[in-house]
């Protein structure tokens, strides 16, 4: 079991239980699984991802490889998992390549942080896989939202961790890159059976095509967990999104016929 939580409480006030966003949840994630966290806006998906990434303090228990996430040193946790958060404002601009190279931070041991050949190879590969080779010299503040999203995705990939936490990775991406991202993630999962993916998805179809396990959240709690068959029953999604998801999806499909 790579991740295991019990009575997990998490929030943004000094003491998480005072104004909790995540309320006493319990879940288990096995090594090698591909997990999608689904739920309506504000249900605590991103907060859960932050707690797993060790970015937010929490109460209760959250074990990563058998040890409490809070007891990890920053370095140690970043060797195990890479988090791609939602885009934030940029104040100082770097080039695409420089930004992706920052993903190699923990791998580079040179005193002045000069990248070695392996760092360069990995960055090259991540740039290529995200369609960034042609704009590698551009400043990231000149890029569109989708291009920027791909830059940060490439940086997260360059960390080469066995666990990936992605917060709405398809945000800002056009259809082509959504499709490519899907392929990319599937490839990455196949590369090594230990590769574990945990993602927050708005796009249920994307989640279905990449993931084999689902956590459905509502109001800071997990209302359903398990495989596609268990979770995707109309009732559970109806409860989570407070709408008839299934007939909405079918209606959308009907436009194509």
């Amino acid at each position: 079991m790579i991740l295991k939580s019990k009575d997990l409480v998490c929030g943004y006030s000094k003491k998480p239980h005072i104004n909790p966003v995540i309320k006493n949840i319990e879940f288990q994630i096995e090594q090698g699984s591909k997990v999608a966290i689904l739920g309506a806006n504000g249900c605590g998906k991103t907060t859960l991802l932050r707690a797993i990434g060790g970015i937010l303090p929490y109460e209760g228990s959250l074990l990563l490889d058998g040890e409490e996430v809070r007891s990890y040193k920053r370095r140690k946790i970043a060797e195990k998992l890479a988090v791609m958060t939602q885009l934030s404002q940029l104040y100082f601009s770097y080039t695409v390549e420089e930004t992706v190279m920052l993903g190699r931070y923990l791998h580079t041991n040179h005193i002045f942080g000069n990248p070695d050949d392996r760092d360069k190879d990995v960055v090259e590969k991540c740039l290529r896989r995200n369609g960034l080779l042609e704009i590698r010299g551009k400043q990231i503040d000149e890029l569109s939202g989708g291009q920027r999203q791909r830059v940060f995705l490439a940086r997260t990939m360059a960390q080469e961790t066995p666990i990936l936490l992605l917060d709405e990775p398809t945000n800002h991406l056009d259809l082509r890159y959504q499709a490519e991202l899907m392929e990319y993630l599937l490839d990455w999962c196949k590369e090594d059976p230990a590769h574990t993916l945990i993602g927050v998805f708005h796009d249920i179809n994307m989640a279905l095509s990449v993931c084999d396990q689902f956590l459905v959240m509502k109001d800071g709690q997990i209302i359903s967990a398990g495989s596609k068959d268990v979770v995707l029953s109309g009732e559970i999604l109806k409860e989570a999104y407070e709408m008839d998801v299934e007939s909405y999806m079918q209606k959308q499909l009907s436009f194509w016929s």
Partner: protein
Amino acid sequence: MKQKTHRAKIIISCILSVIIVILCMSIGSVSVPVKEGVTIVFHKITGTAIPDSVNPSLISILWEIRMPRTLCAFFVGAALSASGAVMQSVLQNPLASSYTMGVSAGATLGVAILIVSGIANTALGMFTLPVVGFLAGFLTVIFVIGVAAKIDHNMQNHTIIMFGMVFSLFVNAILTLISSLASDHVQRLILWQMGSFSGRRWIHAGIVCVCVIVGGIILMLWHRELDIMTFGDEQAMSLGVDTKKSKVILLVIASFLTGAAVCFSGIIGFVDLTVPHAVRRLFGSKHKYVLPMSMVIGGAFLALADMISRTILAPREIPVGAVTALVGVPFFVWVYFHDSKK
């Protein structure tokens, strides 16, 4: 190709900076020709006798007055610029500086108490004001960081900035109170605040130089963390940087540099704010380049400002802080906005 132009820019900037510093030593009420200057410096350094052909008054003007003064200005400029670059990146705020963190308010209050109480006039030696200025400024920042860490467990940037600014205002209020009650001393206090390099000796230049070298080396060891922290705490943490620890260390070193600068020069604004921005424009945002180039360019800029401050209305001297803003604003506007379309 890009690498090459980058390297060329660095080399040209360094050469220009050295030329500026040399010119600053040569220009003044009495001009010291570069050739004589070189002879004097050569013989002083090698400890050999200076030929009689050189006017003895030039020797003392150059060696005892102008060189230490210019170098002092250079190192103060280097310290302020490096510290400004760090503050902006760590706090993720293009307007942040040590002054936002209360260095100047604290240092001025310390000096004000010394001047008003009359201790400054007693025979404690010429280092009383600088040492007190340094300690008061530095301790103010430590206090600000300490309290920010207490109120906000995650030490978020806006907490640090907000508390720093509020506390600076509080200290400034005390300062205003003291000035209004002890109006006899106001003139001296204002002069100290405005900043000047007049009468700086080798010892001052030497102390600031050591601080700059030590601080600069420590900062350079953190250049990658600085790069990463400009993307924000969350991203920095997920890349493996212990943001809380790094923030404390980097802010303390940056404040130490400003404190060391302020104590020998008074409050000189503008350099720490603008030089790093100009450097980022010219050399990109990587701190591997931003830090050393800020030091070189900031140093040359302040040496130039000091030279202007003592020559433009000679024999009167105008406050160097006024010059940095008057010269700096047009320069900054040009560098920052001329290629904003690119």
